Each structure stands twice: as structure tokens, then as C-alpha cells.
């Protein structure tokens, strides 16, 4: 239990979340569940990780604007030092 609370505190810091001591049980059971994968180690010896199913290079967006917008034209008001954009919450 002490171990789990220590883990919880580390995860809490890394994930930027407040986790509760009652989450300990679930987190421990998920961790155990993940550990069952270690049985597969011998089956994947020499295999490379697969991060994307098709292993093709992702095509990145062309670095050009489809249309240019002058940001100053969109500024309708400044509130407490922040710019307010008209499209927020507008239908």
C-alpha cells in the first residue's frame, strides 16, 4: 500500500492530476494486467516496434496558408489585456 501511494504521488505529478488513495487498487490491477505482456517477450525477439500500422511516411500538410487572415481585423475587443476573437461561441 505504501508503495502504491508512492507511485500515485509520482503519477500525480507527471500527469498533472490529483489522484485519490482509492485509485490505488485500480491502478495496481491495471499494472498487473499490463505486466502479463512480459510473457510475449520471447515471441517478439528481433521484431521492431510498430508505431503506425502502415509504416508509410506521414504526408505533412503543405506549409502554405489556404487563405490569409489579418489577425488585427479579427480583434474586436481587448478584455483584461486579452484579445477576444469573435468566433468563440458564435454560430
Amino acid at each position, binding site marked *: 500500500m505504501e508503495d502504491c501511494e508512492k507511485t500515485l504521488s509520482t503519477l500525480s505529478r507527471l500527469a498533472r*492530476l490529483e489522484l485519490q488513495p482509492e485509485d490505488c487498487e485500480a491502478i495496481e490491477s491495471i499494472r498487473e494486467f499490463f505486466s*502479463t*505482456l512480459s510473457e510475449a517477450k520471447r515471441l*517478439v525477439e528481433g521484431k521492431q516496434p510498430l508505431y503506425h500500422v502502415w509504416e508509410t511516411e506521414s504526408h505533412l500538410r503543405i506549409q502554405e496558408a489556404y487563405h490569409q487572415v489579418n489577425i488585427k481585423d479579427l480583434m474586436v475587443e481587448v478584455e483584461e489585456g486579452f484579445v477576444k476573437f469573435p468566433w468563440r461561441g458564435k*454560430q
Partner: protein
Amino acid sequence: MTTIYQQLQTGDYDPVEAFEKAWERITRHEKTVNAFITIDDYNKLRVKAEEASKRIRSGEPRLLEGVLVAVKDNISTSWLPTTAGSRMLSCYQPPYNAYVVERLLEAGAIIVGKTNMDEFAMGSTGEFSAFGPTRNPWDLERVPGGSSSGSGAALAYRAVDLALGSDTGGSIRLPGAYTATVGLKPTYGAVSRRGLIPYANSLEQIGPMARSVIDTALLYKVISGYDPLDATSIKGPGIELERLQPADPSKLKICVIKEVLEASQKQVVAAFTRVIEKLEANGADVNYVSLKSQRYVLPTYYIIAMAEAASNLARYDGGIYNCGSLKMPTWEEQNIRVRSMLFGREVKRRIAMGVFVLSEGYRDEYYVLATRVRRMVRDEVLGLTRDCIIASPTSPVQPPRLGERISDPLSLYALDLATVTANLAGVPALQLPIATTSEGPVGIQLMARPWGEEDLFNTGLLIEEITGLRGVYAL
């Protein structure tokens, strides 16, 4: 049962009549079922239906003219809020439409509303929404499956004709199985993810849901296609609706996954076996196969999904997404407080475990190992689907009762036993109903080679003929 596709073909689809009937059902059942988070205004929708009717009368109908569609609430719409089922996004209205939404509008569809879902698509039952659980129209005490719970339920009580869901590990197919509807998880890259609120980028796909195979194919035709603005979009062959027809059973090779069958409930196995035996009797070549990687698919999937989720959900830092309701003295405090207050329990759990599997000292043991096992899963599935349609029950159980699996995460994850494989391998998978019993519906899942959607639809049409379960509904 006439499908929407047939009605559109014959000119029998009347948008105004369809809308009025659907609205009447929404008024009657929505309070109990809770399939929607947002429903658009009656008058606006009625005007759209009238315009669609005019267009049909003038002889210029588009592919989905006046057809009523529901959109899962993690798919961006510029005129309706998009919450992803989370309090974190309860004030969020996107500044643009998702690619698939644009395609729907261009095809003349009427988007009725945004459907309920497990928060950020993290769930298999539809109980983890910040807007309350969705109930299964077939049995209100049972779950409709998740995470596209509202899309499945809305179809089952005929609030809409078609629906969009998203599928990261079974989120279209489980609701399909539990609500006796049809759903497709497309080939990875076949449907643009632009405008989808991300959960696990390498696994998720937007997909069509309907009450029949041909209507699912119709919606797939509209939303699929290459999108240059989505780096994961791929150019593929597409489908021709006119070419679809029930598969010839004598030319069909089916591979049944033994491990999934062995882990399934008796009633599920019985319904599944009945259909497989009929296919065999009609000439299909049925083989019972073992997938070496099957026993590892669940931990592999959950490690990868949670790692990607932890990264994706880091953007919710208490800044622009918190509706401005909470203001703490420092960014650090604001960040932690907002995330802790506005994320639900399951989301927090998955972010924490995602951070764990990526953390120093554990990364190789969990995340990297999972990506290597994923290669094994993918290669095995690609090998098998080269000349075979892989079949299994979609869910090992019938729809659980509400609350039955909410407190034990592992029993919740076990529901995805048959579905996560297709996401890990990137192949298409189709769910369709094969039985409706007192304990709820049962579904079959078919997996094919990449871009094998047409094979899946044809096999699905054949199974529909065998079971007679085309266009079924609960209420």
C-alpha cells in the same frame, strides 16, 4: 424491411415526413434513453427538411438528400457544441467542421444532433459520459455499448436514419452488437480524422453506423476519401454501391478465431455457431483457427491507447478549455485543479497509466514491448486476411446491466477482447446483428484485408439474408 438506400433510389424517401416521425420518437424516448448531448432546434431542422424535399421534387437530389444523421460528440461541428462527453469541453464550440461533417453537408444530410458517448471515447459501455449514461433501447436496464453509445441507441429507437461513430478499440462495433445495429471500423486512413477530438491517433477511425449493411455502405461512401489536410489519410480504392451484392457462399472462406469463441458466453456462442453453420451449409469454407497473438491483444491495445491518450490529453491544461470558471493564482495550480475537477475518473485513470507506461524505467518494459507485439498482431492478421474473412462474436457477452462493470476496470476492458485486434492491425471490421434474445442482441464481427470493405459489405449482405435481421429496431 426497406432500407434508406432503397427509399432514396426509388424516390420514396420523404424528408419532411421522416423528420416529423423521428422528432415524435425523440420527444417520446430521448429523456429515458439519453442518446444525445445536443439536439438542434426543431424549426431549423424542419426548414432543412423542407428544402431537401424541394430539391428532391426538382429532380436534383444529392446522395443523402434530407437523410437524418446523428454525429458523435467528439466530431467537430461549427454550429453545435462538441464536448466529447466531457465537462472539460462543456463550453467548446469548434471554429470549423470535421472533414466528415463537411462531406455529410455536401451530400445533403440533415445533422439532427450530437450523440452521447463515453468521455473522450474511453469506455465500452456508454456509462462514462459527463452527461449521464445512455440506456439501451432494447432493455433500458442494460448498457448500449460504448463509446459511441448515443449513436447506437439513436439508431435503435429510430431517432435518425444514419449515424457517425468513432472506433479506437471497438467503439462502433460494441454499440452495434448491443443495439442490433450495423457498424464499420474502416481501414486505418480510409476516413479522414481531421476534426476528430483525438484519443489514440494510431488506432482510431471515424466510421458509419446504420440499421442495415447497405445503409452503412452508403454512409461509408460519403465520408471516405483522401484528405490532404490529415497526415494519416491514405488514398484507397473506395467502393461502388451498385456493385455490392450478397457474397457467393461457395467462394467464401471464413476463419473463426477459436480463442474468442472459447472466451464467449454460451448464448453468444450458440447464436454465432448457428450463423456459421448456415454459411457452411450454403457452401462456405469454414476454418477454426488459432491466433497466436490473441492472448496479448488486450494489454497491448490498452498500453498503446493509454500512452497516446496521456499525450493527447496533455493539451487540456486549464487554459482555453475550462470555460473560464476557475481561476487559480498560478498556472501550475490552475492546470492541476482544472484537470482534476473536469476529467472523469476513467479518463484520469487512463492518463495516469499512460504516463506510467511512458515513464523512465518502464517505457521499454511496457510501451516499447507493446509496439513490438503490435507488429506481431498486425503481421498475423494481414497473413490471415489475405484469403480469409476473419469471423468472431463482436462481444464475448450480451449487453451488461447498467453499473455491472463500472467499478472494475479489467472486467470493462475484457469486453473489447474481439474488437481491438482490427485497430491494432489497421484492417477494416464490420459488425452486424445475428440474434435478438431476452438478454439483448448478439452481433458478429467480420474482419478483412486492408481496403477489403467491399468484401465485408458483401459478406454482411449474405448474413443479413440468412438471419433476416435487416433494419431491425427496438422502439
